[in-house]
């Protein structure tokens, strides 16, 4: 019996060591990647880099036009996806059961949509938006395709945020004789804003990181886009092109990657700060605002 007690003590120590080792390994790899990107890319960053257009197939010049294209694509995505996601989430949150029936079907479809690979979205976007709807390689096609991709996650987070609003608010609103739509727009949605905002940020982050879907919908062009029907290249597509198709483009790829990762970090930090701020402000404002 003495031996087996000792054996369990040894097992404990080994397990502890392995778990810490695993966590350290993850940390090391992450640091490796982040530092590599930052070190190789940060040296090339300058205002000129961020504002000028790429030259010499991107080996020199900047990424100004690409940033503009990226922002335009994002704008299309948000404009198309957010209202639809909000409305759908409201519908889903009203329905309590998630089993058979309409809401179950909707949820399952969205779960499948969420799992569809990005390249398949690229195929779909190409066939539907570019060819069938005749938009061609354009920022509009790219933005709409990304909207389809972002939709499931936006709906999921928005619905969660709405459901997280304490039911006491709903009861109070009903007891005050407020209609459901008033209660929704004046009490529930404002209270769910931080969660909805956080979900939006998540969706934007996902969209920014997208590459495969954009290659076949928004295209490769590096010129400054004049309108939504112009083709445009996003930051992530530029990184891919520089790394794989343009010999000697690696350094520019790193610089762009630094910008992209920096942008993502900034957006995430902003979201975190907003959530905390909104949480601190408290929800008492919400209720008094509704009665007015």
């Amino acid at each position, binding site marked *: 019996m003495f031996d087996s007690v000792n054996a369990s003590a040894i097992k404990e120590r080994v397990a*502890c060591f392995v778990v810490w080792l695993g966590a350290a390994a993850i940390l090391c790899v992450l640091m490796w990647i982040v530092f590599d990107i930052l070190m190789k890319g940060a040296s090339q960053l300058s205002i000129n880099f961020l504002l000028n257009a790429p030259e010499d197939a991107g080996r020199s010049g900047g990424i100004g036009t690409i940033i503009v294209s990226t922002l335009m694509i994002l704008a299309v995505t948000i404009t198309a996806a957010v209202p639809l996601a909000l409305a759908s989430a409201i519908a889903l949150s009203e329905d309590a059961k998630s089993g058979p029936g309409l809401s179950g079907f909707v949820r399952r479809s969205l779960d499948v949509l969420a799992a569809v690979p990005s390249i398949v979205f690229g195929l779909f976007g190409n066939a539907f938006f570019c060819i069938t709807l005749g938009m061609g390689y354009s920022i509009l096609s790219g933005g709409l395709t990304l909207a389809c991709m972002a939709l499931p996650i936006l709906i999921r987070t928005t619905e969660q945020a709405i459901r997280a609003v304490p039911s006491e608010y709903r009861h109070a609103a009903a007891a005050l004789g407020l209609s459901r739509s008033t209660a929704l727009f004046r009490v529930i949605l404002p209270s769910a804003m931080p969660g909805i905002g956080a979900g939006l940020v998540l969706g934007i982050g996902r969209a920014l990181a997208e590459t495969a879907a954009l290659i076949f919908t928004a295209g490769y062009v590096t010129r400054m886009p004049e309108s939504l029907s112009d083709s445009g290249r996003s930051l992530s597509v530029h990184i891919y092109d520089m790394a794989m198709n343009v010999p000697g483009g690696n350094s520019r790829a790193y610089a762009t990657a630094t910008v992209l990762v920096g942008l993502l970090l900034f957006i995430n930090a902003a979201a975190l700060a907003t959530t905390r701020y909104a949480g601190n402000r408290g929800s008492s404002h919400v209720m008094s605002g509704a009665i007015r």
Partner: protein
Amino acid sequence: MTLSCRNISFPFNADRWLTRLTRLSACVSAAIVLLVITFLLLESWPAFRTIGVSRFITDESWHPLSDRFCLVPMITATALTSGGAVIFAAPLGVCSAVFSQFYAPPRIAAWHRRLVELLAGIPSVVFGLWGLVILVPLLAHLGGSGQSLLAATLVLALMIMPTVALTSSSALSSVPAELIRGGAALGMKRWSIVWQIAIPAARSGINTGVMLATARAVGETMAVLMLAGNVPEMPSAIVSPVRTLTANIALEMGYATAEHRSLLFVSGLMLMGVVSAGVLIAELVRGRRHV
């Protein structure tokens, strides 16, 4: 009193419209996936008609310009890279979750979780870039050019690990505290509690995480495109260059014509089928367990 009269008639209409509009939106959202499937089917139909399903397996190689359409090397590459990635990522992800839930002091645990979320947010092209510039030359020492099955599998594992880690972490934190306390009160040591009580109790959440990660690995395009090499042939060794289904689509879409293009849609349909099946099975399993 006039206020309440207005409230009685108006909201009735506004509420009705609200319900109609939101339900319609939900249906539109649900319809998108059907739209995707429809277009995939429409575009792949020519390939089914002129080439036929059996040839995807029985043709001798993938040379579309010479009328050879065997998808098996690509399917194998996808299976190997995804499978390999999951084998690496699942234990590492669970280890990370166990670390942040049970072993790390609270502040370190919070930082660790933030780090993993950061890792989850890094775009796949950036992983591909890093892999291409740093990992590939290192792996070249093992033979070949470095762009290989191994390179793609390793980086893919890194990419999907956060998915497993974050889902497992929330599954572990949902294990009722009484179970943990019960184990501690019986004098069980930390690893025993984790291995014999916590992980089994969190099993369904962990499995969901692994399935999600697998789906992500199967569908990943950019990183494997940049790291797996570009050879549409069966791999002979772990350092052989391969091409996955996703990379195949990405590389050839640009110049594919008619039948060839249609065939790429077929592989897209295949990918969609595999991934959807995974999602639906996961939901079925989860549904059964709750009953």
